[in-house]
């Protein structure tokens, strides 16, 4: 029984940049040129049959590792990072690449009951990946959300508008360089 990672990697050796199965979650880091073909493969191949796009999100790694862990987590009793007292035999593999953003896809197969994660690193200069709306219609609103909050465009999306913020909103609030105290007046005084 080959793993899901091996099947994707053997089919698309050029597109797969790296992979890991940290804590049991099989993850493939893909170059963005190969995303749409690999996604079509995992959806249409009968042995994978990923007919359900569970989640589509993004990460901004621009502030990653540059500051201490937020006080909320360090004082909450939750282990923020492995302590030397408890050696971590399976350490986190780290950010997928040196690029600023990563678009993350979670697929699930309702026939085989298995999951797979795609991570597509996206650079700051040209934040654009291919849209998966043609494969999973449910990607439509998820991609709009990523565009709205991270400013990553999806090539081929039928209707790439903001979905959570209003049209007049300037910027993308979940980018790490969006000022945390910035307020944009809509109506009424600035608050």
């Amino acid at each position, binding site marked *: 029984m080959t793993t899901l990672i091996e099947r994707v990697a053997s089919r698309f050796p050029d597109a797969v940049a790296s992979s890991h199965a940290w804590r049991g979650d099989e993850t493939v880091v893909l170059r963005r040129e190969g995303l749409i073909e690999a996604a079509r493969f995992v959806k249409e191949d009968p042995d994978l049959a990923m007919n359900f796009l569970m989640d589509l999100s993004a990460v901004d790694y621009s502030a990653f590792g540059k500051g201490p862990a937020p006080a909320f987590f360090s004082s909450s009793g939750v282990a923020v990072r492995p302590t030397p007292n408890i050696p971590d035999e399976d350490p986190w593999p780290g950010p997928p690449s040196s690029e600023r953003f990563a678009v993350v896809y979670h697929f699930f197969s309702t026939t085989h009951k298995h999951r797979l994660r795609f991570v597509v690193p996206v650079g700051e200069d040209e934040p654009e990946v291919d849209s998966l709306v043609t494969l999973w219609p449910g990607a439509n609103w998820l991609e709009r959300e990523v565009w709205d909050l991270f400013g990553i465009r999806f090539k081929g999306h039928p209707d790439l508008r903001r979905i959570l913020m209003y049209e007049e*909103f300037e910027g993308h609030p979940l980018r790490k360089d969006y000022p945390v105290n910035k307020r944009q007046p*809509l109506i009424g005084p600035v*608050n």
Partner: protein
Amino acid sequence: MPEHASFLTSRLNEALGWARKYSIFQYPFVTACCGMEYMATACSHYDVDRFGAGFPRFSPRQADVLFVVGTISHKMAPVLKRIHDQMAEPKWVVAFGVCTCTGGFYDNYATVMGIDTILPVDVYIPGCPPRPEMVLDGLMKLQDKIHEEHRTGERPAPEERPETLDA
């Protein structure tokens, strides 16, 4: 006009105020978890009907009091303002829960920091969420204000905004 007639008029006005404060038609603008507390207040255990406010109208044109229950985001703000504009005078606004009073624990790009930045607020009910006793207390305050308006002929000034704690 003879003196006793004007006396009668003012008493009539006060009676009108008495009638009006015990027949509040409310418009619940419920957006968040405070709604559960609103429902608890409205149901039989706390029984908001004892105060004559047990009749929610789901059309702003038929309502007297706008209950803003829950967090208001910037995207929701124009809708809320429009609802308020659609209500016929006389109308009152109750900010229900700390999010509507000051923004509460939200301090981010999406949340309106208190609905008094867009609407005149008559009664603030802080709490996260407020207990039904506090809601009833706020309702009674509102009734006092309604009665006061009919007694004096002037609308009582809006309440002071509750102070926010600087972290």
